[in-house]
């Protein structure tokens, strides 16, 4: 097991602060009478004795588990209360304000403490308190009714990204499988584009380059804002610049990251694939790609049959047996045969009539986007695209940061991810110190187990497309929903087209939300169950957002009568006679999760957190991709099966302000979502502590030209709207957003004025099933 040393963590040795200063501080305590100020006021009382409020505190560790970096946290408990939370010593960078605010959450008077039963209209917020026994009786009755009338699949459960611990989503999966197979939803809100592109092309995803950032000399931050989403280690990007390198931020918004970067490039939302294809064209035309790497580590020279449109295999039974044309021998040979001169292009060869190479197919897509065409489509000057392509290709160590960025939550999201993967592989920028393509990364090369065995089911339950949840529920297609169970998530703020989500929740007869707070989704629920927070239950977190497998310790009981997700399911398991499956001790369940990792339970209990990735980790090291051929495979069979081009391409999106159609004339502004420092998705956003340090209302970013033509001034209350709905906020007018684009903040609750997802695009289904929230057209007006 690799152990990380202290890397990038604030510590005495890393500061200008030295022991001498500490000694001075120590000497000064109690010497107030000698200070010059005190001499002027000799009668005043001496300073009070310094009492260390944490001297007798018990210390507990846990992980901060929403969809973020999963920092390890340390709580100080005095007299059964959490009095302080700080970033623990087991992190490769420091935890943020949101994690530390957990010191407030256990005593927040707004926490839910008892089960609540709706006694008014859905959405009214009118509930009455009931006992857990009453709640469990009601759940049991509703579950049995649903199973009897329309089958177990009429119970639909959804988990979100509010807690990546193993005792949440995986326990729900096991519970509902034991129940006989409840339905769920399909469609990833965040990073379907990465899954659909990186898994087939590079062989696996969630492999992380974060520890290589500082070794890079050229970093393209493509459509994401690491100052917020990689907040713990954003300083690594700043060090690239301090070391003489360059950081380029591509984003329609001049973000916090862009302000600290070397350069800001602002394309039209959703056009990133066209821009990357234009860069590929420059790189190929000017022969700036890494030919040796391309031949050795990619399927660029592999042949695709012109008549079938399929890659040619030497052996149909061997999916890795791609073939190439050996220019020296003049014959077709297996791609990994040694001593051949594989041809990247077939012009003038005997193979040209029947075959294309993957390289030629990529170039054919790139050729549609010379820099002039890309300038027209992307709104980025041709000279900038050309320069960016050259700089990236020619840099010694160049990295692309995708980080599940907003650019992939568009109609061309999968193509956008894939074209960047093509570019990186062709330039040989994968598998070395300081290069690569950054996904969100964690422990993915280490497999984990399930805490509770999930029984295999014979029946196939149809899944509800998450982006069309409202329509599916209203039309009872693909199934009728009698019971909806929502945990670790907040559909009313995160799923697209909120009004339709709301209508779905209003129609479902029995909606249960399990949460720590009365969330936007809880408002539209029949029963709300108060769940334990971090430091209030036991868990293990081993997930692809952190390099550390972390023990989540229980420090306190939590407010009122809160129960953990596991305890809720365990009680229900008893009522439905699941046998012993949900009555195993926590140690055994944690051990089940750890079993394939090689970390033992005892080791974890002793160390609290174990780094299983290591500080020197390089994904796809030395160009060894994790595909069957061990090479980057550019031609993607799954896309063809879905009816899309098997080579990444770009076609103008349906919802684009330049389209000459009714939608674009009615709603002529693009809109994109951005993240804020006060929340991770919707988690933390309701905390009063966040109100003290951040904006307290949604901010709507407008370009001054767009604002002026609509009579909107900085600070005005404005309404952003389209046919789907409305979102209100305070206008911030200026030049930090591309003209024609509106910036919306993600994650605001109903009680705070409502989510930006009231207007977002609910298209289903694009290539890879990407969420298209950043492909949303709107109009903006001043609030009347």
């Amino acid at each position, binding site marked *: 097991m690799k152990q990380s040393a202290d890397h990038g963590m*604030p510590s005495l040795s890393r500061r200008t602060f030295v022991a001498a200063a*500490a000694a001075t501080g120590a000497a000064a305590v109690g010497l107030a009478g000698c200070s010059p*100020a*005190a001499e002027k006021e000799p009668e005043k009382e001496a*300073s009070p004795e310094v009492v260390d409020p944490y001297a007798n505190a018990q210390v507990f560790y846990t992980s901060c588990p929403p969809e973020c970096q999963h920092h390890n946290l340390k709580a100080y408990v005095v007299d059964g209360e959490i009095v*302080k939370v*700080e970033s623990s010593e087991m992190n490769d960078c420091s935890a943020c304000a949101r994690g530390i605010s957990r010191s407030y959450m256990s005593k927040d008077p707004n926490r839910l403490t008892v089960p609540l039963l709706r006694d008014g209209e859905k959405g009214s917020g009118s509930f009455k308190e009931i006992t857990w026994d009453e709640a469990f009786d009601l759940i049991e009755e509703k579950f049995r009714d649903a199973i009897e009338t329309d089958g177990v699949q009429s119970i639909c459960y959804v988990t979100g990204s509010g807690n990546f611990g193993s005792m949440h989503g995986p326990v729900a999966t096991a519970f509902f499988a034991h129940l006989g197979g409840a339905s769920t939803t399909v469609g990833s809100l965040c990073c379907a584009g990465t899954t659909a592109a990186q898994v087939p092309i590079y062989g696996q995803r969630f492999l992380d380059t974060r520890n290589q950032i500082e070794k890079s000399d050229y970093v393209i931050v493509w459509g994401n804002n690491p100052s917020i989403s990689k*907040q713990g280690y954003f300083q690594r990007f700043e060090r690239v610049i301090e070391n003489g390198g360059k950081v380029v931020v591509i984003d329609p918004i001049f973000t916090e990251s862009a*302000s600290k970067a070397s350069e800001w490039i602002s394309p039209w939302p959703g056009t990133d694939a066209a821009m990357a294809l234009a860069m590929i064209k420059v790189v190929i035309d000017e022969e700036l790609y890494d030919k040796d790497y391309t031949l050795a580590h990619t399927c660029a020279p592999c042949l695709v049959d012109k008549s079938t449109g399929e890659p040619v295999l030497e052996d149909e039974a061997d999916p890795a047996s791609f073939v190439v044309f050996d220019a020296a021998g003049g014959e077709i040979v297996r791609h990994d045969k040694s001593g051949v001169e594989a041809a990247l292009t077939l012009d003038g060869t005997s193979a040209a009539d029947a075959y294309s190479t993957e390289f030629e197919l990529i170039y054919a897509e790139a050729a549609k986007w010379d820099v002039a065409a890309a300038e027209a489509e992307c709104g980025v000057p041709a000279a900038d695209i050309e320069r960016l392509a050259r700089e990236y290709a020619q840099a010694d160590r160049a990295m692309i940061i995708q980080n599940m960025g907003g650019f992939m939550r568009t109609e061309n999201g999968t193509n956008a991810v894939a074209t960047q993967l093509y570019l990186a592989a062709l330039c040989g920028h994968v598998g070395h110190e300081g290069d690569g393509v950054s996904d969100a990364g964690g422990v993915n090369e280490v497999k984990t187990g399930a805490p509770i065995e999930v029984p295999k089911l014979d029946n196939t339950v149809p899944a509800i497309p998450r982006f069309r949840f409202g329509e599916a529920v209203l039309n009872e297609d693909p199934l009728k929903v009698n019971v909806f169970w929502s945990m670790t998530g907040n559909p009313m703020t995160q799923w697209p087209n909120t009004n339709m989500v709301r209508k779905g929740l209003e129609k479902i007869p029995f909606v249960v939300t399990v949460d720590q707070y009365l969330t936007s989704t809880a408002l539209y629920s029949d029963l709300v169950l108060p769940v334990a927070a971090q430091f209030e239950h036991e868990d293990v977190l081993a997930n692809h957002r952190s390099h550390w497998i972390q023990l989540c310790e229980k420090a306190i009981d939590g407010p009122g009568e809160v129960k953990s997700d596991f305890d809720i399911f365990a009680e229900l398991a008893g009522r439905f006679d699941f046998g012993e499956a949900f009555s195993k001790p926590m140690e055994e369940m944690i051990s089940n999760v750890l079993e394939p990792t090689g970390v033992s339970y005892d080791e974890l209990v002793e160390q609290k957190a174990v780094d299983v990735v290591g500080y020197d980790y390089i994904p796809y090291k030395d160009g060894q991709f994790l595909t069957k051929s061990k090479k980057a495979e550019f031609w993607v069979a799954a896309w063809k099966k879905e009816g899309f081009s098997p080579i990444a391409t770009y076609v103008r999106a349906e919802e684009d302000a330049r389209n000459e159609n009714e939608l674009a004339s009615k709603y002529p502004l693009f809109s994109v979502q951005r993240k804020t420092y006060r929340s991770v998705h919707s988690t933390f956003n309701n905390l009063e502590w966040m109100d*003290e340090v951040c904006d307290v209302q949604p901010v709507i970013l407008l370009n001054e030209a767009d604002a002026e033509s609509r009579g909107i001034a900085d600070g005005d209350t404005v309404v952003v709207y389209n046919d789907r709905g409305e979102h209100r906020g305070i206008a911030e007018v200026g030049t930090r957003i591309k003209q024609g684009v509106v910036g919306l903040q993600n994650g605001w609750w109903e009680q705070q004025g409502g989510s930006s997802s009231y207007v977002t695009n609910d298209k289903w289904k694009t290539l890879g099933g990407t969420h298209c929230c950043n492909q949303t057209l709107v109009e903006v007006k001043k609030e009347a």
Partner: protein
Amino acid sequence: MALGFWMNNKNCYGCKTCSIACKSEKQLNNGVLLRHVIEIKQKEPLAVSFLSMSCNHCEEPACLKNCPVQAYTKLENGIVQQNHDLCIGCQTCVEACPYGAPCYDEQESKTYKCDMCVDRQAAGMLPACVAACPGMNLAVDEMDSLQSSHTADIVSDDATETQPNFVITVDPLLKGEPDNVVVENVASKA
């Protein structure tokens, strides 16, 4: 000899972890904030910049000078410390401080002020804000040392009569000095 804070306005990306770490360390009530992060948006050249400021432990502290019950002391090491037992919650210090550093606690009817985590420093630890900053954009040290080790805008030179012990490495994109924005904000609220 005086301890002061250093803050890297050039690299700070505005996460507010310093403010929240302080609240957690000092177990402050809602509404009480001893370290503020202000956002400075500049149009030309385009910049989004952040300044984190708490008490500047001034050479001539206005809080100490104006406190009617002598609750403030300037320690030999330069830290301006409040004896909270003495505070009567009159808020004279809140009004007197050009930086808005002292903060009135409505629930307790008393005022709090940053003490540079004097107790943590005595135990060899960094102040909570400094320890928590993910970007390592805060430090505490002797002013002589801070001034010689940072290419910086030195607040104590000319900003106010109070002679703050606060060294700022200024964002080169900014046309003005960021601490002046704080002083203007405080003045406009008064």
